[in-house]
């Protein structure tokens, strides 16, 4: 029980200003290890900015980020990646003119320590290829290894995006809207990948997502952001029944959500 309470990632009083605009205001979140923690909120609530602060893409105006108790606030993104924090992007962020295999192989090579073997052929390092092939199968891109990433369909690109992150075998995975732009039929396959990640037992996922049904069903905890600040935090059930959240975010559209969640969990 004690290990369940282990805090793996923590944001403390984070604040980010872009000129006069305050994108994230005094946000403190604690992410427990081996849980799926979702961050929701309407567009412009500061979710992606928070992600950028956690993964080192942006530096906060104030506040700190701790990973396993270590202050990582001012580490550059590539150092943070080395610590075991992976990140996928809302807007697909891949290597368009490289093959699917090479996209993922690069990511698995990144943390392997053979990056400066200038005079050895990369094909000599079979372990990275093996790892990449394994990940390709995992995310369901088998058979497309040799295709250029830019020739993939949108849903496949989203899977590749996930694969690039998974290849580095991170402990904490920051997923920024993995289903962005996907049709409803494509979502179950992605959900399955997320489930399989959690089933590994040692991964922590932080998820930003707009599909409320998905968030409600897979999250252990949910943090709600609104206008750059924190609005609420709790279990899916608590969030669904939270009156402030409902008025600020869920609105009438999800008015019957409380009932369905209660029915499911009660």
């Amino acid at each position: 029980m004690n290990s369940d309470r282990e805090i793996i990632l923590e944001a403390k009083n984070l604040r980010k200003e872009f000129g006069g605009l305050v994108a994230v205001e005094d946000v403190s979140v604690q992410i427990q290890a081996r849980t799926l923690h979702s961050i929701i909120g309407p567009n412009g609530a500061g979710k992606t900015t928070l992600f950028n602060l956690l993964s080192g893409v942006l530096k906060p105006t104030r506040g700190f980020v701790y990973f396993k108790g270590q202050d990582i606030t001012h580490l550059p993104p590539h150092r943070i990646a080395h610590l075991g924090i992976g990140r996928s992007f809302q807007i697909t962020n891949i290597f368009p003119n490289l093959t699917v295999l090479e996209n993922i192989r690069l990511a698995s090579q990144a943390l392997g320590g053979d990056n400066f073997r200038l005079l050895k052929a990369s094909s000599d390092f079979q372990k990275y290829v093996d790892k990449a092939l394994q990940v390709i199968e995992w995310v369901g891109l088998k058979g497309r290894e040799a295709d250029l990433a830019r020739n993939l369909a949108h849903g496949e690109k989203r899977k590749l995006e996930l694969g690039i992150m998974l290849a580095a075998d991170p402990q904490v995975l920051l997923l920024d809207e993995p289903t962005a732009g996907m049709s409803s039929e494509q979502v179950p396959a992605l959900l399955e990948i997320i489930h399989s990640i959690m089933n590994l037992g040692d991964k922590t996922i932080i998820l930003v997502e707009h599909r409320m049904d998905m968030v409600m069903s897979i999250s252990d905890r949910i943090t709600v952001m609104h206008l750059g600040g924190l609005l609420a935090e709790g279990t899916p059930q608590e969030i669904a029944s939270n009156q402030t959240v409902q008025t600020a975010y869920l609105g009438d559209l999800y008015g019957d959500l409380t009932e369905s969640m209660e029915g499911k969990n009660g």
Partner: protein
Amino acid sequence: MAELQTQNVKKQKPGLFKQNQLAIIVLVLLILFPFIMSLITGQPANEGKPKFWEGQFINFFIMAVYAMSYDLLMGYTGILSFGHAAFFGAGAYTMALWLTHFAPLISSQYKITLPGGMDITTTLLFIVALLLVLIVSILMGLFFSGASVRVKGVYFAMITLAIGEAFHILSKATDFVKWTGADEGLHGVPVPLWINPTQHRLRFYFMALFFMVVMYLFLKRVTESPTGRVFVAIRENENRVRMIGFNPATYRSLAFVTSAIAAGLSGAMFSLWNMSATPSMTSAVTTINALIMTILGGVGTLIGPILGAGLMQIFSQFFYQWFGARWPLVFGLIFIALVVFLPYGIVGTYRLRKQGMKAGWTRFTKQFSAKK
């Protein structure tokens, strides 16, 4: 998965000869070229017409290495640099300065002989010269990459243009006229006798050919290494490279240093070949030549720049004969046409076509087998 792995293994081991058939045939032809010329013209391989054509090829070999070094930056790593002549010129001037001023001084005071009595002073000093070129090139590479830490893209290109011009101005500065000969440059560089390009043209020909082949293999190895793959990834998407745990600045520096070494060595070879180092070697025109050769042949391929250098050599030779000093004008028109009709260069366009054909065949055969 197992199937794909065996495919991978198979792809790598179809025999050295079969895999590089064309390259090996071309190489053999290049090795035989002086003797074939000698047979055709009836003149000795070291004189007359064969000597002239060997000279053309020597120039081409050296420029090919220079073009490849540029492509490593532009084609593979996606760095647009307009200061490449500084690398070339640094190599040329290091070699020329050393051979003109320092080497004679040292060899007049010290003699190093082998136990058999053979004098190897000049040879050793020549090796020192090559090492110096290497060191200067590495420093130049680091210097240029240092400028790329904060500035990107076109802005970086502008900065490299400025740095390149600074070196050009330095190379013709009258303050150092005693050393560099300023505008005139250094002429009549005392090249070691055994590789003197006028007396031992055939030997120099093979040396230059060897130089090109070794540098090609070296650069090919680098581009196919784990590090080289990161270069390409930086070209494709630098932000993602950073997010998966590579520090782009480190790899950019490495690309710069590797490129500077190749360019510097080609510059040193060029100064040996011409027995001179002149400010024109550090000028923007020399940079633009690298750009033109690379684009002509195909960006992001190593064979492309070699072809581009060959074409450039042919163009400059014949066009000068046909059109006189106005030949760049005609060449410019041809260059425009080539860029319009072969936007990926000769090798790049060829590869795309081949790929398209291959994909077409796969589609075709797939349909065939599906019907069945």
